[in-house]
């Protein structure tokens, strides 16, 4: 049986090695300065890049975070403060459920609410679709981070005559803020790689655009288009784009998660010593 679990481990790691290996082999040669700074070339023409996709993805993520982060932080504070009420339990459960729903559904809802009334695809719609994915992630992360803050800090502030809201915002949330920010980066990395909700919201755009009311390019959409094209040049660019996306997304996500872990452990030890001391 020991052998079986070792086998399971090896089989599980094999695809990871293969995917990363193929991405590097097929993509690394194509990541050139032109690739990073030019807009796509017409089919069959050499050269061209994904600069508009990188900028478009950044704009989409910024819109998503601007909408979702305040709501997520507020909801996270609520869950941390009222953790055992029936409503809080329900919200916590629904946040987890929402986080597991297919992202394409968010795209359809953003389409119905924004694209259809406006009559055209837009970066706003794409940002809203991604924002719907970010809210539950930020909510749960904020709750966890706020809970890690030692309660004695809040008690000290209240004892000094701070009002409830100031204690919550300038003592508790502020202490938790570095953790919340790294969690936001984890969420950012998650949604920056999303493609499905963008297919009929942001839609993609082969040209340079930073106008949020118009269709906009996104790196995952470019990879999708290039991967299915019959042109050799575009297929090469799909590999390069995928390697770039993985480096961005996994790099940001993993670095942030590392910081989060270190921080959670630090707070846990702080709490642990408090508890045994007195």
């Amino acid at each position, binding site marked *: 049986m020991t052998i079986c679990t070792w086998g399971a481990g090896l089989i599980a790691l094999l695809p990871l090695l293969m995917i990363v290996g193929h991405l590097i082999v097929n993509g690394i040669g194509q990541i050139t300065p032109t690739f990073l700074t030019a807009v796509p070339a017409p089919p069959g023409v050499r050269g061209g890049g994904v600069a508009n996709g990188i900028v478009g993805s950044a704009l989409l993520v910024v819109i998503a975070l601007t909408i979702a982060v305040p709501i997520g932080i507020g909801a996270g*504070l609520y869950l941390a403060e009222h953790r055992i009420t029936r409503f809080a339990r329900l919200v916590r459960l629904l946040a987890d459920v929402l986080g597991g729903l*297919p992202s394409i559904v968010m795209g359809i809802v953003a389409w119905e609410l924004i694209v259809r009334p406006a009559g055209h695809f837009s970066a706003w719609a794409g940002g809203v679709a991604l924002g719907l994915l970010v809210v539950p992630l930020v909510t749960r992360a904020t709750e966890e981070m706020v809970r890690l803050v030692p309660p004695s800090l809040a008690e000290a502030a209240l004892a000094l005559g701070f009002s409830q809201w100031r204690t919550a915002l300038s003592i508790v949330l502020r202490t938790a803020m570095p953790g919340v920010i790294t969690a936001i980066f984890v969420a950012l990395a998650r949604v920056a790689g999303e493609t499905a909700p963008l297919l009929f919201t942001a839609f993609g755009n082969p040209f340079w655009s930073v106008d949020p009311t118009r269709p906009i390019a996104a790196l995952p959409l470019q990879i999708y288009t290039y991967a299915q094209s019959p042109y050799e040049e575009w297929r090469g660019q799909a590999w390069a784009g995928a390697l770039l996306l993985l480096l961005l997304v*996994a790099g940001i996500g993993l670095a942030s998660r590392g910081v989060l872990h270190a921080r959670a452990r630090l707070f846990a030890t702080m709490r642990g010593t408090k508890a045994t001391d007195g």
Partner: protein
Amino acid sequence: MPSRTADRIYQATITICAAAIPAVLALLAIVLFAGAWPTLSSAIGPLLTQSTWDVPQHRFGAAPLIVGTLVSSAFALAIAAPLGIGVALLATEIAPRALREPLAFLVNLLAAIPSVVYGLWGIFVLVPLLRRSIMPWSMAHLGWMPGFSGPAYGPSLLAAALILAIMVLPYIASVSRDVILAVPRAQREAALALGATRWEMIRDAVLPAARTGLFGGIILGLGRALGETMAVTMVIGNRHTIPDSLFAPAYTMAAMLANEFAEASDPLHLSALMAVALLLLTVTLLVNLLARLLVARVAREDTATDGLPMPPGVAP
């Protein structure tokens, strides 16, 4: 007192933020339900049972999508569930202590790869591999079994199931690891004290205690697999028929939405797609709810987090 007013404003604000989450779920349901109403009210029977999808004739039968979604997810789970639990056992009980964390980390890395990258790898590596070697071999040696015959297309139900298995593996492994770690130490020590070997300890003390949570993790993986869109769209072949073999192309609900939604302009077509989306939402909602409740039941004793083990990608 101004500060009491401010406190009230603060409480009201965070309550509204918390209420936004149920509101978003309700919004998803209402928008899809309203959009799907023309189909729901007049053509729900054909949608669920017929196989013809003919936009100009207004015949919208989604049975192949439902079958494709369920079969690809079921095969993915059949592969990923034993692997995921095996990896979790390896990372909690069996591997040398120094290797456990790195192993769990590496498996979680699979969850960090964007779906479209899986699809790309599927198109250019997995599908050619299946077509060139694995499918001909299986047909020669396993052709007597139903499902392992017929012409070997590359893009197929099998390709989608394999990609899905890789994609849900980290979720199953991560939840399994958390629930196995939540099994009390005393229970293991008792088994070992009674003279159990390590494997007997795992089988008799750890797995029964973690059973509900392991099942929850598998159901969570099912929720992911049912709704996964891009990677499946890129490798499943997108053919609107009920597949008669694992090697045949198929279609899923999410893949059809990805392919047709941007181009749909006919109101009845849109409504049929909305109905498919509503069906997908309902199924994944129920599956997720079930998974969360199962996992929450196991984790309840674990007061440190007072809640649910977080899937990979969610902090901390």
